[in-house]
């Protein structure tokens, strides 16, 4: 299905490039027409596709659950309510299981993360070309060169998105660490263990790395898994351009990988949620 005139490498690159809006040193405020241009825009550029899908999916999640919350009844639940309740109960159970302190903020946080990440991952199951081709058609209608309209539909394959989420969790960790333990308590936790007061510098390095590694691992685990999965989908999609036999084989592969991916996207969402709960629990734990 690769567009004519594109090499396989070009096809893959095209699929892995975000729709970037930013200030280019030469072109001013514009969409990046290549990876190099996107790089030249520096930090103050934005991936419109990632932001759009992430916000859109977040709204879908919020809209559905708000609808349930508005019409909720403690009597016999309807279909949608049943579905929402099952998820809420599942998240509530997970929070109860791993979070020992008392904080009403953690369960909604876990629910948001679980469903939002799940939905963002779910975009991976859509055939890799559908939405990008639609975007190209729309872009062409507005007079853009379709080859330079980039569109990545899986927000969780964008490290900005996963790091954005992980940083959100990280700020919350820091906030509650300071709030519950106080600045001294938090510093003590970083400085006075595992080797006691004598080994303070070593402690600081060890605990500092442990602290920083939490959001980094959170973000990179999700990003890595989803990016790898997306890349395999793209590689499978390449087979469609290699004759009908390869195309057929590719179709079987895509189906198999998609079925396997259902497990992965759910698992990744669950891991992200569970680790968030665990990190929040650690932030609430006081060491004596």
């Amino acid at each position, binding site marked *: 299905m690769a567009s004519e005139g594109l090499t396989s490498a070009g096809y893959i690159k095209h699929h892995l490039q975000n729709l970037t809006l930013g200030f280019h040193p030469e072109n001013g405020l514009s969409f990046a027409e290549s990876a190099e241009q996107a790089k030249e825009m520096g930090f103050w*550029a934005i991936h419109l596709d990632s932001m759009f899908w992430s916000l859109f999916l*977040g709204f879908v999640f919020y809209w559905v659950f708000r609808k349930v919350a508005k019409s*909720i009844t403690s009597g016999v639940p309807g279909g949608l309510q049943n579905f929402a309740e099952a998820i809420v109960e599942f998240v509530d159970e997970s929070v109860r299981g791993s979070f020992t302190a008392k904080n*009403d903020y953690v369960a909604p946080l876990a629910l948001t993360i679980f469903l939002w990440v799940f939905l963002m991952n779910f975009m991976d199951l859509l055939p890799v070309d559908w939405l990008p081709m639609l975007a190209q058609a729309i872009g062409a209608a507005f007079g853009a060169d379709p080859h330079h309209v980039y569109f990545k539909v899986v927000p969780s394959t964008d490290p*900005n998105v996963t790091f954005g*989420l992980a940083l959100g969790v990280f700020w919350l960790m820091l906030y509650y660490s300071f709030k519950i333990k106080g600045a001294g308590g938090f510093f003590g936790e970083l400085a006075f263990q595992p080797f006691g007061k004598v080994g303070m510098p070593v402690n600081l390095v060890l605990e500092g790395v442990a602290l920083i590694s939490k959001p980094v691992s959170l973000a990179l685990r999700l990003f890595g898994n989803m990016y790898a999965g997306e890349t395999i989908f793209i590689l499978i999609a390449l087979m469609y351009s290699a004759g009908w036999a390869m195309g057929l084989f590719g179709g079987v592969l895509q189906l198999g990988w998609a079925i396997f991916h259902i497990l992965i996207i759910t698992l990744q969402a669950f891991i992200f949620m569970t680790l968030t709960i665990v990190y929040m629990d650690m932030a609430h734990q006081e060491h004596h």
Partner: protein
Amino acid sequence: MNINATLIGQSIAFFVFVWFVMKYVWPPIINALNERKEKIAEGLAAADRGQKEQVLAQERATEVIKQAKAEAAGIISQAEKRRNEIIEDAKTAAVEEGERLKSSAQAEIEQEIQRAKEALRVQVASIAIAGAERIVSKEIDSSVHEKTLDDLVAQI
């Protein structure tokens, strides 16, 4: 693949969504769930209570039936006793009445006998006088011998 302002946008979106969920989604749903849990617990407790009450009611019912049976038996035996009494009373009354009738009949018979005797006596006397008159028609002056005849009548 560059790190850029998307990061910040995503972080802001994250906090906004979490805040909205915490404010408007989570509380009503979790409250409804807890409420339903309570309702179910109450229902189960009520069922338990109902079962216990049923057992108690059954016990009470058997007790009442037992009492009623005992009472009925008492009433029956009393009625039997009363029946026997009535029969006994009736018997004695009948015997007494019979006795009374018998004695009154006897008295009447006695009287009848007396009266018959009297009549017979008078008749015998008159027959004797008539016979005597006939025998001694001329010889005896009834006015002279009246005293003697009266004595004779009294003797008979």
